[in-house]
């Protein structure tokens, strides 16, 4: 028997709540939210363990270490993103949405969806490093503090996605 799905929150109410979470982040830490930074922390840790000699030479890791002295896993974003996994799980559990599945348009196969997800992830991961943050850290948090770069990155992300939407329409609708 299929369990009754709880409906999603009103988007404007969700937006106000998300804004308050972002405000709390700034009030507590003096910085906004983020996501891709936690991935960078994890990779810096892994590289330092697996290939310590190579990691010494990497300009990328050097820059990270200058900004975050100490254990790279003991950073704000790593703790925050661990919370995201817990919060998302709790919400999904309460709403009856916990389910292992590959979500995709009926026009494409699960396999194609997973290949596209991997490709999109690689691009987003790369872009988030070049752009110094993703939709959370650069665009949303940047906009809240009126950062010029935040607004530019936001427009570049959404503008590109709209520009390419027609080409990839069969994957979604």
């Amino acid at each position, binding site marked *: 028997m299929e369990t009754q799905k709880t409906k999603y929150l009103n988007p404007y109410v969700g*937006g106000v709540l998300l804004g308050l979470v972002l405000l709390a982040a700034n*009030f507590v830490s003096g910085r906004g939210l983020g996501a891709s930074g936690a991935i960078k922390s994890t990779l810096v840790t892994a590289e330092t363990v697996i290939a310590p000699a190579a990691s010494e030479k990497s300009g990328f890791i050097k820059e990270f270490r200058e900004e975050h002295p100490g254990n790279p896993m003991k950073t704000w974003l790593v703790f925050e993103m661990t919370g995201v996994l817990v919060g998302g799980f709790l919400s999904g559990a309460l709403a009856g949405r916990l389910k292992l599945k590959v979500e995709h348009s009926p026009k494409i196969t699960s396999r194609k969806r997973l290949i596209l997800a991997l490709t999109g*992830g690689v691009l987003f991961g*790369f*872009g988030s490093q070049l752009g110094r943050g993703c939709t959370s850290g650069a665009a949303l948090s940047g906009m809240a*503090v*009126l*950062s010029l770069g935040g607004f530019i990155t936001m427009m*570049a992300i959404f503008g590109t996605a709209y520009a390419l939407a027609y080409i990839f329409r069969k994957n979604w609708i």
Partner: protein
Amino acid sequence: MGPLSVNELISENTNLFLAFIIGIGFGFVLEQSGFSSSRKLAGVFYGYDTVVLKVFFTAAITAMLGLLFFSLFGWIDLSLVYINPTYLTSAIVGGIIMGAGFIIGGYCPGTSFCGASIGKLDALVFIGGLFIGVLIFGLGYNLWDGMYMAKFLGSPKISQTLGLSDGVFAFLLIIIALSMFWVAEWAEKKFPREEY
């Protein structure tokens, strides 16, 4: 008073604990709003579901106004709040690459963690892709560090660049957001959809 950790009103460990709590709120609100579904997220680019636009801009405006009011009340010192620096080239090129990743992969980093937390396997694979992408950037850093550092403008506020006060800019942004919400409501009526 604020920011609490910058003013050393709370310890580093308390700061990290609060990061975890704030993260729970972040993940909970994202999931409640439907950001755990890639098809719902992608809807904004086709007009059938504009939840991303509504939540994103409402959140940005709420936090922006909250910071301005907190500053007015003397609750937070905005000069101690981090303003993302502007490197013009990388902000644009990075954004373009992320936009392509968004329409191809259906998630952004934050929402992919949210999707994975309720069992979306496509979100989990997207996260795998994120690690590969960040790793490629790190390994080839010397190839693109010129672009990464190009056109550094400092940390200007968009209001300064436009020659407006923060308050006037905030007011204009609210007007722009309201007009976008109006278009979004119209688009959702025009393009049929189902709930994912």
